[in-house]
């Protein structure tokens, strides 16, 4: 039987658990805020010295103490966007195959294999990219790109220069492999809940399988698909080690995708422990602050879209 003493004890224990877990949950929000404040605090010196010029200046001269974020920002955005461009059709194909085409017994093994791509640590992608992929890319693909695309009007400047192997395009390709499993997984999820009634109605009207996918499933799950794509973008923006290996880490502005560049994360990884002056340190912290801003916005948009999609069902 429960006596009142034990009942009081239970109440006490219950409220303790509730308070502790609530406090920890709230501290997660505080942590997010603390990271922002900390980054801002660490970059004060650079914020004061360069103000808004920091965003538009391509200078990166540790000796003279002149820093600008334009090259890493452009490098971050261009690698992530090109990676997305490559990963998008591949992920769509993978999701379609896994939901619509694969025989039942093959679905799980294939799904796990694709998910393994997300399990491989980032540094392994970097090493593989630098030692295995980049040399082959330089020998076989880049000369072709330079010869055939480099002389074209409009897109020509994107493909000029020497076949170095490493550079923006190489980083983008490695990034695209890394984000495929994330995008494909979201697409697979949202395709999986398209009502059979809709699909069967389309089939009954004589639609081919592809027409059902393109005209029924994709429009139905549009918001979720876009959310997944943006999630992939968010991942690509903040990816560090893989990019640090293959992007070339050069602080120069170049129109060519074959030339070395740098991203925010790769600059931080390569230079933060070597920063000698406090201004250098602050400039790097400000880069971190910018990355924090970009990724948080992108990831928030992605989550909002997926939430909207879930709500619309």
């Amino acid at each position, binding site marked *: 039987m429960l006596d009142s003493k034990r009942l009081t004890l239970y109440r006490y224990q219950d409220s303790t658990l509730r308070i502790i877990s*609530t406090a920890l949950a709230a501290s997660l929000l505080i942590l997010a805020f603390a990271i922002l404040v900390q980054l801002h605090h660490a970059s004060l010196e650079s914020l004061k010295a360069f103000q808004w010029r920091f965003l538009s200046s391509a200078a990166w001269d540790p000796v003279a103490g002149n820093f600008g974020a334009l090259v890493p920002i452009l490098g971050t955005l261009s690698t992530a966007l090109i990676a997305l461009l490559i990963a998008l059709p591949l992920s769509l194909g993978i999701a379609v195959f896994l939901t619509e085409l694969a025989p039942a017994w093959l679905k799980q093994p294939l799904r796990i294999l694709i998910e393994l791509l997300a399990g491989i640590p980032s540094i392994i992608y970097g090493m593989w990219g630098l030692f295995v992929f980049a040399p082959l890319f330089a020998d076989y693909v880049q000369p072709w790109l330079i010869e055939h695309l480099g002389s074209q009007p409009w897109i020509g400047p994107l493909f000029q220069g020497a076949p170095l192997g490493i550079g923006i395009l190489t980083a983008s390709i490695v990034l695209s492999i890394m984000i495929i499993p994330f995008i494909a997984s979201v697409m697979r999820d949202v395709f999986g809940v398209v009502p059979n009634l809709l699909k069967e109605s389309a089939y009954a009207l004589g639609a081919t399988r592809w027409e059902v996918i393109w005209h029924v499933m994709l429009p139905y799950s549009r918001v979720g698909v876009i959310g997944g794509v943006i999630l992939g973008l968010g991942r690509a923006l903040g990816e560090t080690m893989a990019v640090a290996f293959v992007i070339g880490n050069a602080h120069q502005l170049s129109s060519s995708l074959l030339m070395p560049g740098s991203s925010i994360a790769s600059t931080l990884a390569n230079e933060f*422990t070597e920063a000698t002056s406090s201004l250098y340190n602050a400039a790097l912290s400000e880069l971190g602050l910018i990355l924090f801003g970009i990724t948080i916005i992108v990831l928030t948009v992605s989550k909002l879209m997926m939430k909207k999609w879930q709500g619309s069902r």
Partner: protein
Amino acid sequence: MIPTAFSFLYFKRRVINGFCLLLSALAILIGLAWLIWILSSLLRHGLPGFSWHLFTQMTQAPGTEGGLLNAIVGSLMMVLVAVIIGTPVGLLIGTYLAEFGKNGRLANTVHFVNDVFISAPSILLGLFIYQLVVVTTGHFSGWAGSFALALMVVPIVTRTTEDMFLLVPIHMREAAIALAAPRWKVIVSVVLRISRTGVLTGILLATARVMGETAPLLFTALNNQFFSVNMNQPMANLPMVIFQYAMSPYDDWHKLAWAGALLITVFVLLLNITVRLLSKQKLPII
């Protein structure tokens, strides 16, 4: 009119259909090809470096034969500490989200922020811990590395715990409450007991994830050439050794880096495969 096989429009639609489905199959083949290519290069470059020395000797200066013992021990210690710190926190936040917060404003916000944290750049966590711990104490340390990794463990464990707790049918809880069990007992002996495999899965996934993480360690644990189990000192760890050795100009260091890369990948992938094969629920990719 029913289209016949000779109708041009019908033929065109069938060709488009076949072509696109073929592309879709090709896409998954490309995905698998990347995986096979990466794994086979790891095996090709990593296997020659595999020997007992790898597990019995320290990292050495180039030219002398060395191993990765200090890095392996350092990595295991830091990951273990990170998981020990991060798991209870993640479990409790997950408990709050699934049991107490429900759909309240705080719970919704925490759920959202946690989701963002899972995908946020890990290098920023390293930067944060650097300012918080390394600058304050004045030196790099294994503890700082563990804290940075723990910050990655928390959101993963939170997410899986919440998911798994929510799968437990409400009538299980009601049955226990009807027997006058206090809330904590319902959570520990009913909800957690039913979902323990799933929760364990989350912890293992988090372990696999932080095992190969390099970015948060760059400014926290740094590296150490020597054998050290002192968490107050800079600590050797596999990802950092791989990074430094791969970037070095020495052939024997490259060989060690590949061996370390193979070691870490095999460990992480085996953990992933086991967890995903055993789990009946769909697991998030993290």
